Protein backbone atom coordinates (compact mmCIF):
# COMPACT_ATOMS: atom_id res chain seq x y z
CA UNK A 1 0.00 0.00 0.00
CA UNK A 2 1.15 3.51 -0.68
CA UNK A 3 0.97 4.54 2.96
CA UNK A 4 3.12 1.61 4.00
CA UNK A 5 5.85 2.56 1.58
CA UNK A 6 5.88 6.20 2.65
CA UNK A 7 6.11 5.21 6.28
CA UNK A 8 8.85 2.73 5.48
CA UNK A 9 10.77 5.23 3.41
CA UNK A 10 10.62 7.72 6.25
CA UNK A 11 12.29 5.34 8.63
CA UNK A 12 14.82 3.81 6.26
CA UNK A 13 16.29 7.06 5.00
CA UNK A 14 17.10 9.03 8.14
CA UNK A 15 20.50 10.23 6.93
CA UNK A 16 19.00 11.93 3.92
CA UNK A 17 16.50 13.79 6.05
CA UNK A 18 18.96 14.84 8.73
CA UNK A 19 19.22 18.52 7.71
CA UNK A 20 15.42 18.72 7.71
CA UNK A 21 15.12 17.47 11.28
CA UNK A 22 17.19 20.32 12.59
CA UNK A 23 15.16 22.94 10.74
CA UNK A 24 12.25 22.13 13.01
CA UNK A 25 14.24 23.15 16.03
CA UNK A 26 15.54 26.38 14.49
CA UNK A 27 12.94 28.86 15.80
CA UNK A 28 13.36 27.65 19.34
CA UNK A 29 17.13 27.65 19.03
CA UNK A 30 17.08 31.20 17.70
CA UNK A 31 14.83 32.35 20.52
CA UNK A 32 16.87 30.64 23.22
CA UNK A 33 20.07 32.01 21.75
CA UNK A 34 18.93 35.59 21.36
CA UNK A 35 16.99 35.98 24.57
CA UNK A 36 18.56 33.58 27.02
CA UNK A 37 22.02 32.43 26.09
CA UNK A 38 23.51 35.51 24.44
CA UNK A 39 22.46 37.93 27.20
CA UNK A 40 23.91 35.57 29.77
CA UNK A 41 27.11 35.20 27.78
CA UNK A 42 27.31 38.98 27.39
CA UNK A 43 27.21 39.29 31.15
CA UNK A 44 29.74 36.56 31.77
CA UNK A 45 32.16 38.00 29.21
CA UNK A 46 31.44 41.58 30.20
CA UNK A 47 32.34 40.79 33.77
CA UNK A 48 35.87 40.18 32.61
CA UNK A 49 36.16 43.13 30.25
CA UNK A 50 37.18 46.75 30.58
CA UNK A 51 35.16 49.46 28.76
CA UNK A 52 37.60 49.32 25.86
CA UNK A 53 37.22 45.55 25.47
CA UNK A 54 40.39 44.07 26.92
CA UNK A 55 40.46 41.23 29.40
CA UNK A 56 40.61 42.15 33.08
CA UNK A 57 39.92 40.78 36.51
CA UNK A 58 39.37 44.26 37.92
CA UNK A 59 35.61 44.04 37.80
CA UNK A 60 35.59 40.88 39.85
CA UNK A 61 38.06 42.46 42.22
CA UNK A 62 35.76 45.45 42.39
CA UNK A 63 33.15 43.20 43.93
CA UNK A 64 35.27 42.84 47.00
CA UNK A 65 34.55 46.29 48.40
CA UNK A 66 32.92 46.39 51.83
CA UNK A 67 29.57 47.74 50.64
CA UNK A 68 29.18 45.21 47.84
CA UNK A 69 30.36 42.33 49.95
CA UNK A 70 27.88 43.47 52.58
CA UNK A 71 25.16 43.43 49.94
CA UNK A 72 26.04 39.87 48.94
CA UNK A 73 26.22 38.85 52.55
CA UNK A 74 22.82 40.29 53.41
CA UNK A 75 21.33 38.72 50.27
CA UNK A 76 22.75 35.37 51.27
CA UNK A 77 21.50 35.76 54.83
CA UNK A 78 17.97 36.65 53.80
CA UNK A 79 17.88 33.91 51.21
CA UNK A 80 19.23 31.38 53.69
CA UNK A 81 16.88 32.35 56.49
CA UNK A 82 13.76 32.39 54.32
CA UNK A 83 14.87 29.14 52.69
CA UNK A 84 15.55 27.35 55.99
CA UNK A 85 12.34 28.52 57.61
CA UNK A 86 10.37 27.92 54.44
CA UNK A 87 11.85 24.43 54.24
CA UNK A 88 11.06 23.59 57.85
CA UNK A 89 7.55 25.01 57.96
CA UNK A 90 6.70 23.80 54.47
CA UNK A 91 7.87 20.29 55.34
CA UNK A 92 5.78 20.36 58.51
CA UNK A 93 2.68 21.39 56.62
CA UNK A 94 3.22 18.90 53.81
CA UNK A 95 3.68 16.02 56.27
CA UNK A 96 0.60 17.17 58.17
CA UNK A 97 -1.50 16.99 55.03
CA UNK A 98 -0.10 13.80 53.52
CA UNK A 99 0.60 11.71 56.61
CA UNK A 100 -1.22 13.45 59.42
CA UNK A 101 -4.49 11.62 59.07
CA UNK A 102 -6.34 14.76 58.03
CA UNK A 103 -9.51 14.43 55.95
CA UNK A 104 -8.59 13.84 52.29
CA UNK A 105 -10.55 16.83 50.98
CA UNK A 106 -8.05 19.20 52.55
CA UNK A 107 -5.26 18.22 50.21
CA UNK A 108 -6.67 19.56 46.94
CA UNK A 109 -7.49 23.09 48.14
CA UNK A 110 -4.20 23.28 50.04
CA UNK A 111 -2.16 22.44 46.95
CA UNK A 112 -4.17 24.87 44.83
CA UNK A 113 -3.67 27.61 47.37
CA UNK A 114 0.04 26.80 47.46
CA UNK A 115 0.13 27.25 43.72
CA UNK A 116 -1.51 30.65 44.02
CA UNK A 117 0.59 31.79 46.97
CA UNK A 118 3.89 30.73 45.40
CA UNK A 119 3.07 32.99 42.45
CA UNK A 120 1.81 35.87 44.56
CA UNK A 121 5.12 37.61 44.92
CA UNK A 122 6.41 41.04 44.10
CA UNK A 123 4.65 44.29 44.62
CA UNK A 124 1.18 43.11 45.72
CA UNK A 125 2.70 40.82 48.32
CA UNK A 126 4.61 43.71 49.83
CA UNK A 127 1.40 45.73 50.02
CA UNK A 128 -0.44 42.89 51.71
CA UNK A 129 2.22 42.61 54.40
CA UNK A 130 2.40 46.36 54.85
CA UNK A 131 -1.34 46.40 55.36
CA UNK A 132 -1.02 43.67 57.99
CA UNK A 133 2.24 44.13 59.85
CA UNK A 134 3.28 47.62 58.82
CA UNK A 135 3.07 50.57 61.21
CA UNK A 136 -0.64 51.00 60.43
CA UNK A 137 -1.24 47.35 59.75
CA UNK A 138 -4.22 45.32 60.90
CA UNK A 139 -2.31 43.03 63.22
CA UNK A 140 -0.02 45.76 64.52
CA UNK A 141 -2.96 47.95 65.50
CA UNK A 142 -4.91 44.99 66.87
CA UNK A 143 -2.02 43.89 69.07
CA UNK A 144 -1.46 47.43 70.29
CA UNK A 145 -5.04 48.39 71.04
CA UNK A 146 -6.57 45.07 72.12
CA UNK A 147 -3.71 43.19 73.71
CA UNK A 148 -1.33 45.97 74.58
CA UNK A 149 1.67 44.65 72.69
CA UNK A 150 3.57 47.28 70.75
CA UNK A 151 5.50 45.53 67.99
CA UNK A 152 7.65 48.57 67.37
CA UNK A 153 8.97 48.65 70.88
CA UNK A 154 9.66 44.92 70.70
CA UNK A 155 12.07 45.70 67.91
CA UNK A 156 10.00 44.38 65.05
CA UNK A 157 10.14 46.39 61.87
CA UNK A 158 8.65 45.10 58.64
CA UNK A 159 11.12 47.11 56.61
CA UNK A 160 14.12 45.18 57.87
CA UNK A 161 15.93 41.86 57.50
CA UNK A 162 13.39 39.84 59.47
CA UNK A 163 10.49 41.72 57.95
CA UNK A 164 11.68 40.80 54.48
CA UNK A 165 12.27 37.20 55.54
CA UNK A 166 8.78 36.98 56.95
CA UNK A 167 7.36 38.36 53.72
CA UNK A 168 9.43 36.04 51.54
CA UNK A 169 8.07 33.08 53.48
CA UNK A 170 4.70 33.76 51.89
CA UNK A 171 5.93 32.28 48.61
CA UNK A 172 8.74 30.11 49.99
CA UNK A 173 6.55 27.92 52.18
CA UNK A 174 4.05 27.10 49.41
CA UNK A 175 6.89 26.36 47.00
CA UNK A 176 8.29 23.89 49.53
CA UNK A 177 4.86 22.32 50.01
CA UNK A 178 4.35 21.95 46.25
CA UNK A 179 7.73 20.33 45.63
CA UNK A 180 8.02 18.12 48.70
CA UNK A 181 4.45 16.74 48.65
CA UNK A 182 5.15 14.36 45.73
CA UNK A 183 8.27 13.18 47.54
CA UNK A 184 6.30 12.44 50.70
CA UNK A 185 3.66 10.73 48.55
CA UNK A 186 6.49 8.60 47.27
CA UNK A 187 7.07 7.11 50.70
CA UNK A 188 5.59 3.69 50.13
CA UNK A 189 3.22 2.39 52.75
CA UNK A 190 5.06 -0.93 52.62
CA UNK A 191 8.26 0.63 53.94
CA UNK A 192 6.49 1.73 57.10
CA UNK A 193 4.85 -1.68 57.43
CA UNK A 194 8.09 -3.55 56.78
CA UNK A 195 9.90 -1.44 59.36
CA UNK A 196 7.07 -1.94 61.81
CA UNK A 197 6.92 -5.72 61.44
CA UNK A 198 10.69 -5.83 61.97
CA UNK A 199 10.16 -4.19 65.32
CA UNK A 200 10.70 -0.49 64.65
CA UNK A 201 8.75 2.23 66.46
CA UNK A 202 7.39 5.22 64.53
CA UNK A 203 10.38 7.29 65.57
CA UNK A 204 12.85 4.62 64.52
CA UNK A 205 11.14 4.34 61.14
CA UNK A 206 11.46 8.08 60.57
CA UNK A 207 15.03 8.24 61.80
CA UNK A 208 16.34 5.21 59.92
CA UNK A 209 14.19 5.01 56.81
CA UNK A 210 11.82 7.87 55.93
CA UNK A 211 14.02 10.84 56.73
CA UNK A 212 17.13 9.51 54.98
CA UNK A 213 15.00 8.78 51.93
CA UNK A 214 13.56 12.30 51.94
CA UNK A 215 16.78 14.09 52.77
CA UNK A 216 18.03 14.59 49.20
CA UNK A 217 14.67 16.05 48.19
CA UNK A 218 14.58 18.29 51.24
CA UNK A 219 18.11 19.56 50.76
CA UNK A 220 17.57 19.98 47.06
CA UNK A 221 14.44 22.03 47.61
CA UNK A 222 16.33 24.07 50.20
CA UNK A 223 18.83 24.97 47.50
CA UNK A 224 15.99 25.86 45.16
CA UNK A 225 14.32 28.08 47.76
CA UNK A 226 17.66 29.76 48.35
CA UNK A 227 18.09 30.55 44.65
CA UNK A 228 14.50 31.73 44.48
CA UNK A 229 14.94 34.24 47.29
CA UNK A 230 18.32 35.37 46.09
CA UNK A 231 16.98 36.55 42.75
CA UNK A 232 13.85 38.23 44.10
CA UNK A 233 13.85 41.98 43.71
CA UNK A 234 10.30 43.28 43.23
CA UNK A 235 9.13 42.45 46.74
CA UNK A 236 12.23 43.98 48.26
CA UNK A 237 11.91 47.19 46.32
CA UNK A 238 8.21 47.52 47.04
CA UNK A 239 8.79 46.94 50.73
CA UNK A 240 12.00 48.79 51.43
CA UNK A 241 12.05 51.20 48.49
CA UNK A 242 15.59 50.46 47.28
CA UNK A 243 17.01 51.29 50.66
CA UNK A 244 17.96 47.78 51.72
CA UNK A 245 21.42 46.91 50.54
CA UNK A 246 20.85 43.61 48.75
CA UNK A 247 22.48 42.57 45.50
CA UNK A 248 19.35 42.56 43.26
CA UNK A 249 18.52 46.09 44.34
CA UNK A 250 22.10 47.13 43.74
CA UNK A 251 21.95 45.66 40.26
CA UNK A 252 18.61 47.36 39.69
CA UNK A 253 20.08 50.72 40.56
CA UNK A 254 23.14 50.04 38.44
CA UNK A 255 20.91 49.22 35.47
CA UNK A 256 19.08 52.49 35.83
CA UNK A 257 22.24 54.52 35.98
CA UNK A 258 25.84 53.97 36.87
CA UNK A 259 25.69 54.38 40.64
CA UNK A 260 28.81 52.39 41.27
CA UNK A 261 31.17 54.48 39.22
CA UNK A 262 32.25 51.63 36.99
CA UNK A 263 29.89 50.52 34.21
CA UNK A 264 31.39 47.05 34.07
CA UNK A 265 30.93 46.51 37.75
CA UNK A 266 27.29 45.84 36.91
CA UNK A 267 28.41 42.92 34.80
CA UNK A 268 30.42 41.61 37.70
CA UNK A 269 27.45 41.96 40.03
CA UNK A 270 25.19 40.09 37.62
CA UNK A 271 27.87 37.48 37.07
CA UNK A 272 28.14 37.00 40.81
CA UNK A 273 24.40 36.45 40.99
CA UNK A 274 24.53 33.89 38.20
CA UNK A 275 27.28 32.01 40.02
CA UNK A 276 25.35 31.92 43.30
CA UNK A 277 22.02 30.86 41.80
CA UNK A 278 23.80 28.53 39.38
CA UNK A 279 25.59 26.69 42.17
CA UNK A 280 22.41 26.46 44.25
CA UNK A 281 20.46 25.04 41.33
CA UNK A 282 23.24 22.63 40.45
CA UNK A 283 23.08 21.29 44.00
CA UNK A 284 19.30 20.94 43.65
CA UNK A 285 19.59 19.02 40.37
CA UNK A 286 22.34 16.75 41.64
CA UNK A 287 20.48 15.85 44.83
CA UNK A 288 17.25 15.24 42.95
CA UNK A 289 19.00 12.96 40.48
CA UNK A 290 20.50 11.01 43.37
CA UNK A 291 17.20 10.49 45.14
CA UNK A 292 15.48 9.54 41.88
CA UNK A 293 18.12 6.93 41.22
CA UNK A 294 17.51 5.32 44.60
CA UNK A 295 13.80 5.28 44.19
CA UNK A 296 14.01 4.23 40.54
Amino acid at each position, binding site marked *: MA*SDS*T*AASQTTRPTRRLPL*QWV*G*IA*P*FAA*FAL*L*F*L*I*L*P*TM*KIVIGAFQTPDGSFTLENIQGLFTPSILAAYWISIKISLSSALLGCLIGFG*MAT*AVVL*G*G*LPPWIRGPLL*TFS*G*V*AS*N*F*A*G*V*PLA*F*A*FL*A*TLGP*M*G*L*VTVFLRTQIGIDLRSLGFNLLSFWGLTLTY*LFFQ*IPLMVLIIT*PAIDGLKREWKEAASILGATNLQYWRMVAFPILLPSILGTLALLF*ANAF*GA*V*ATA*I*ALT*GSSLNIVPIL*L*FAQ*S*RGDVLGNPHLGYAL*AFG*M*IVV*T*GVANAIYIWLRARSERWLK
Partner: protein
Amino acid sequence: MKKFWAWGALAFGLLYFVLPLIGMTNFSLKMRRGEYSFDAYAKVLGDPQFQQTFTYSVTMALVTILFGVILVVPTAYWVRLRLPGLRPYIEFVTLLPLVIPAIVIVFGYIRLYNTSSWLPLTGSLMGTNLLLMFGYATLSLPYMYRAVDTGLSSIDVRTLTEAAQSLGAGWTRILFRIILPNVLIAVLSGAFLTFAIVIGEFTMAALLNRPAFGPYMQLLGANRAYEPAALAVIAFGITWGCLGLIQLVSRFQKTTQRPA
Protein backbone atom coordinates in the same frame (compact mmCIF):
# COMPACT_ATOMS: atom_id res chain seq x y z
CA MET B 1 -2.05 12.59 68.99
CA LYS B 2 -0.77 12.63 65.44
CA LYS B 3 -3.97 14.34 64.32
CA PHE B 4 -3.58 17.04 66.95
CA TRP B 5 -0.18 18.06 65.62
CA ALA B 6 -1.42 17.87 62.06
CA TRP B 7 -4.38 20.14 62.72
CA GLY B 8 -2.11 22.43 64.71
CA ALA B 9 0.39 22.75 61.86
CA LEU B 10 -2.45 23.44 59.46
CA ALA B 11 -4.03 26.05 61.71
CA PHE B 12 -0.70 27.78 62.16
CA GLY B 13 -0.15 27.81 58.41
CA LEU B 14 -3.67 29.06 57.79
CA LEU B 15 -3.13 31.92 60.19
CA TYR B 16 0.07 33.02 58.54
CA PHE B 17 -1.38 32.91 55.04
CA VAL B 18 -4.83 34.25 55.68
CA LEU B 19 -3.89 37.20 57.89
CA PRO B 20 -2.03 39.17 55.21
CA LEU B 21 -4.91 38.62 52.81
CA ILE B 22 -7.37 39.83 55.41
CA GLY B 23 -5.06 42.69 56.24
CA MET B 24 -4.84 43.93 52.71
CA THR B 25 -8.55 43.55 52.09
CA ASN B 26 -9.36 45.32 55.31
CA PHE B 27 -6.99 48.17 54.55
CA SER B 28 -8.34 48.55 51.04
CA LEU B 29 -11.81 49.17 52.38
CA LYS B 30 -10.82 51.86 54.85
CA MET B 31 -10.26 54.81 52.60
CA ARG B 32 -13.26 56.72 53.83
CA ARG B 33 -12.65 57.81 57.36
CA GLY B 34 -14.54 55.82 59.96
CA GLU B 35 -16.42 53.46 57.70
CA TYR B 36 -15.86 50.64 55.22
CA SER B 37 -16.29 51.63 51.61
CA PHE B 38 -15.07 50.78 48.14
CA ASP B 39 -13.65 54.29 47.70
CA ALA B 40 -10.11 53.02 47.17
CA TYR B 41 -11.32 50.68 44.44
CA ALA B 42 -13.36 53.40 42.79
CA LYS B 43 -10.35 55.68 42.79
CA VAL B 44 -8.10 53.06 41.37
CA LEU B 45 -10.44 51.84 38.68
CA GLY B 46 -11.20 55.40 37.67
CA ASP B 47 -7.54 56.35 37.44
CA PRO B 48 -6.62 56.72 33.75
CA GLN B 49 -3.13 55.49 34.51
CA PHE B 50 -4.55 52.30 35.95
CA GLN B 51 -6.61 51.73 32.85
CA GLN B 52 -3.65 52.45 30.60
CA THR B 53 -1.13 50.25 32.36
CA PHE B 54 -3.63 47.45 32.97
CA THR B 55 -4.59 47.43 29.30
CA TYR B 56 -0.93 47.47 28.34
CA SER B 57 -0.14 44.52 30.55
CA VAL B 58 -3.17 42.53 29.43
CA THR B 59 -2.26 43.13 25.79
CA MET B 60 1.35 42.14 26.44
CA ALA B 61 0.15 39.02 28.25
CA LEU B 62 -2.02 37.94 25.33
CA VAL B 63 0.75 38.60 22.80
CA THR B 64 3.23 36.69 24.96
CA ILE B 65 0.83 33.76 25.23
CA LEU B 66 0.32 33.71 21.47
CA PHE B 67 4.04 33.83 20.81
CA GLY B 68 4.68 31.21 23.48
CA VAL B 69 2.17 28.80 22.01
CA ILE B 70 3.47 29.28 18.45
CA LEU B 71 7.04 28.73 19.63
CA VAL B 72 6.61 25.96 22.17
CA VAL B 73 3.94 23.65 20.73
CA PRO B 74 5.64 22.89 17.39
CA THR B 75 9.03 22.69 19.09
CA ALA B 76 7.91 20.28 21.79
CA TYR B 77 6.07 18.24 19.16
CA TRP B 78 9.04 18.14 16.80
CA VAL B 79 11.47 17.18 19.54
CA ARG B 80 9.24 14.33 20.66
CA LEU B 81 8.73 13.11 17.13
CA ARG B 82 12.08 13.49 15.45
CA LEU B 83 14.75 14.49 17.94
CA PRO B 84 14.04 12.58 21.15
CA GLY B 85 17.73 12.49 22.03
CA LEU B 86 17.72 16.25 22.24
CA ARG B 87 14.99 16.32 24.87
CA PRO B 88 17.19 16.53 27.98
CA TYR B 89 19.12 19.45 26.46
CA ILE B 90 15.97 21.31 25.48
CA GLU B 91 14.57 20.71 28.95
CA PHE B 92 17.73 22.11 30.46
CA VAL B 93 17.45 25.25 28.35
CA THR B 94 13.80 25.70 29.31
CA LEU B 95 14.76 25.51 32.97
CA LEU B 96 17.46 28.18 32.67
CA PRO B 97 15.01 31.09 33.27
CA LEU B 98 14.40 29.56 36.70
CA VAL B 99 18.11 29.61 37.45
CA ILE B 100 18.98 33.03 36.07
CA PRO B 101 16.99 35.71 37.91
CA ALA B 102 14.82 38.05 35.86
CA ILE B 103 16.89 41.02 36.86
CA VAL B 104 20.01 39.43 35.45
CA ILE B 105 18.25 38.55 32.20
CA VAL B 106 16.91 42.04 31.66
CA PHE B 107 20.29 43.53 32.58
CA GLY B 108 21.73 41.38 29.83
CA TYR B 109 19.06 42.61 27.41
CA ILE B 110 19.83 46.25 28.11
CA ARG B 111 23.54 45.79 27.64
CA LEU B 112 23.15 43.61 24.56
CA TYR B 113 20.36 45.25 22.62
CA ASN B 114 21.02 48.92 23.30
CA THR B 115 21.27 51.57 20.62
CA SER B 116 24.93 50.87 19.84
CA SER B 117 24.52 47.11 19.31
CA TRP B 118 23.83 45.02 16.22
CA LEU B 119 20.17 44.69 17.16
CA PRO B 120 19.17 48.04 18.64
CA LEU B 121 15.85 46.98 20.10
CA THR B 122 15.86 49.52 22.86
CA GLY B 123 16.26 52.33 20.35
CA SER B 124 12.61 52.39 19.39
CA LEU B 125 9.35 52.13 21.30
CA MET B 126 8.12 49.17 19.26
CA GLY B 127 11.51 47.56 19.62
CA THR B 128 11.43 47.90 23.39
CA ASN B 129 7.90 46.51 23.53
CA LEU B 130 9.09 43.59 21.44
CA LEU B 131 12.06 43.08 23.75
CA LEU B 132 9.80 43.11 26.78
CA MET B 133 7.54 40.55 25.15
CA PHE B 134 10.49 38.29 24.47
CA GLY B 135 11.52 38.78 28.08
CA TYR B 136 8.08 37.74 29.28
CA ALA B 137 8.17 34.75 26.96
CA THR B 138 11.51 33.76 28.48
CA LEU B 139 10.14 34.03 32.02
CA SER B 140 7.14 31.89 31.23
CA LEU B 141 9.07 29.41 29.06
CA PRO B 142 9.68 26.83 31.83
CA TYR B 143 6.00 26.65 32.71
CA MET B 144 4.71 26.71 29.15
CA TYR B 145 7.16 24.05 27.95
CA ARG B 146 6.57 21.82 30.95
CA ALA B 147 2.78 22.04 30.52
CA VAL B 148 2.86 21.32 26.79
CA ASP B 149 5.43 18.55 27.11
CA THR B 150 3.38 16.85 29.82
CA GLY B 151 0.31 17.18 27.63
CA LEU B 152 2.14 15.60 24.70
CA SER B 153 3.37 12.74 26.83
CA SER B 154 -0.18 11.54 27.38
CA ILE B 155 -0.93 11.18 23.66
CA ASP B 156 0.96 8.90 21.32
CA VAL B 157 2.50 11.57 19.13
CA ARG B 158 4.25 9.25 16.73
CA THR B 159 1.25 7.06 15.97
CA LEU B 160 -1.11 10.01 15.55
CA THR B 161 1.30 11.67 13.14
CA GLU B 162 1.83 8.54 11.09
CA ALA B 163 -1.91 7.92 10.94
CA ALA B 164 -2.50 11.48 9.77
CA GLN B 165 0.31 11.32 7.21
CA SER B 166 -0.96 8.05 5.83
CA LEU B 167 -4.28 9.80 5.29
CA GLY B 168 -2.55 12.57 3.40
CA ALA B 169 -2.27 15.39 5.95
CA GLY B 170 0.52 17.95 5.74
CA TRP B 171 2.45 19.40 8.66
CA THR B 172 0.29 22.46 9.29
CA ARG B 173 -2.85 20.41 9.26
CA ILE B 174 -1.34 17.87 11.61
CA LEU B 175 -0.32 20.55 14.02
CA PHE B 176 -3.51 22.52 13.96
CA ARG B 177 -6.15 19.85 13.57
CA ILE B 178 -4.62 16.95 15.46
CA ILE B 179 -1.88 17.92 17.88
CA LEU B 180 -3.15 21.24 19.15
CA PRO B 181 -6.69 20.11 20.02
CA ASN B 182 -5.28 17.20 21.96
CA VAL B 183 -2.94 19.33 24.04
CA LEU B 184 -5.34 22.25 24.33
CA ILE B 185 -5.87 21.69 28.02
CA ALA B 186 -2.14 21.72 28.68
CA VAL B 187 -1.71 24.80 26.50
CA LEU B 188 -4.47 26.58 28.38
CA SER B 189 -2.80 25.76 31.70
CA GLY B 190 0.44 27.24 30.42
CA ALA B 191 -1.46 30.24 29.07
CA PHE B 192 -3.19 31.06 32.33
CA LEU B 193 0.06 30.78 34.24
CA THR B 194 1.77 33.06 31.71
CA PHE B 195 -1.05 35.55 32.13
CA ALA B 196 -0.61 35.59 35.91
CA ILE B 197 3.15 36.03 35.55
CA VAL B 198 2.97 38.87 33.04
CA ILE B 199 0.31 40.86 34.84
CA GLY B 200 2.31 40.95 38.05
CA GLU B 201 5.77 41.32 36.53
CA PHE B 202 7.79 44.29 37.74
CA THR B 203 11.52 43.98 37.18
CA MET B 204 11.70 43.78 33.39
CA ALA B 205 9.00 46.35 32.76
CA ALA B 206 10.58 48.81 35.20
CA LEU B 207 14.08 48.54 33.81
CA LEU B 208 12.87 48.76 30.22
CA ASN B 209 10.72 51.74 31.16
CA ARG B 210 7.46 50.43 29.80
CA PRO B 211 4.07 51.47 31.23
CA ALA B 212 3.12 48.09 32.63
CA PHE B 213 0.91 47.21 35.55
CA GLY B 214 3.78 46.13 37.84
CA PRO B 215 5.68 49.45 37.85
CA TYR B 216 2.35 51.30 38.16
CA MET B 217 1.58 49.36 41.33
CA GLN B 218 4.98 50.12 42.76
CA LEU B 219 4.67 53.81 41.96
CA LEU B 220 1.30 54.01 43.63
CA GLY B 221 2.68 52.18 46.64
CA ALA B 222 5.36 54.79 47.08
CA ASN B 223 2.88 57.64 47.02
CA ARG B 224 -0.53 56.52 48.22
CA ALA B 225 -1.86 54.70 51.26
CA TYR B 226 -5.09 52.90 50.52
CA GLU B 227 -5.05 52.45 46.77
CA PRO B 228 -2.07 50.04 46.82
CA ALA B 229 -4.03 47.72 49.08
CA ALA B 230 -6.93 47.76 46.64
CA LEU B 231 -4.48 47.00 43.82
CA ALA B 232 -3.04 44.14 45.82
CA VAL B 233 -6.52 42.67 46.26
CA ILE B 234 -7.17 42.99 42.53
CA ALA B 235 -3.79 41.40 41.70
CA PHE B 236 -4.39 38.54 44.10
CA GLY B 237 -7.84 38.04 42.66
CA ILE B 238 -6.42 37.81 39.15
CA THR B 239 -3.74 35.29 40.23
CA TRP B 240 -6.34 33.22 42.05
CA GLY B 241 -8.62 33.44 39.04
CA CYS B 242 -5.93 32.26 36.66
CA LEU B 243 -4.99 29.29 38.79
CA GLY B 244 -8.61 28.49 39.44
CA LEU B 245 -9.15 28.42 35.68
CA ILE B 246 -6.22 26.04 35.29
CA GLN B 247 -7.82 23.67 37.82
CA LEU B 248 -11.15 23.95 36.06
CA VAL B 249 -9.66 23.33 32.68
CA SER B 250 -7.65 20.36 33.94
CA ARG B 251 -10.87 18.70 34.92
CA PHE B 252 -11.83 18.46 31.31
CA GLN B 253 -8.92 16.20 30.53
CA LYS B 254 -9.98 13.73 27.93
CA THR B 255 -6.86 11.65 28.23
CA THR B 256 -5.58 10.28 31.51
CA GLN B 257 -2.52 11.97 32.89
CA ARG B 258 0.06 10.21 34.93
CA PRO B 259 0.58 11.92 38.26
CA ALA B 260 3.80 13.95 38.34
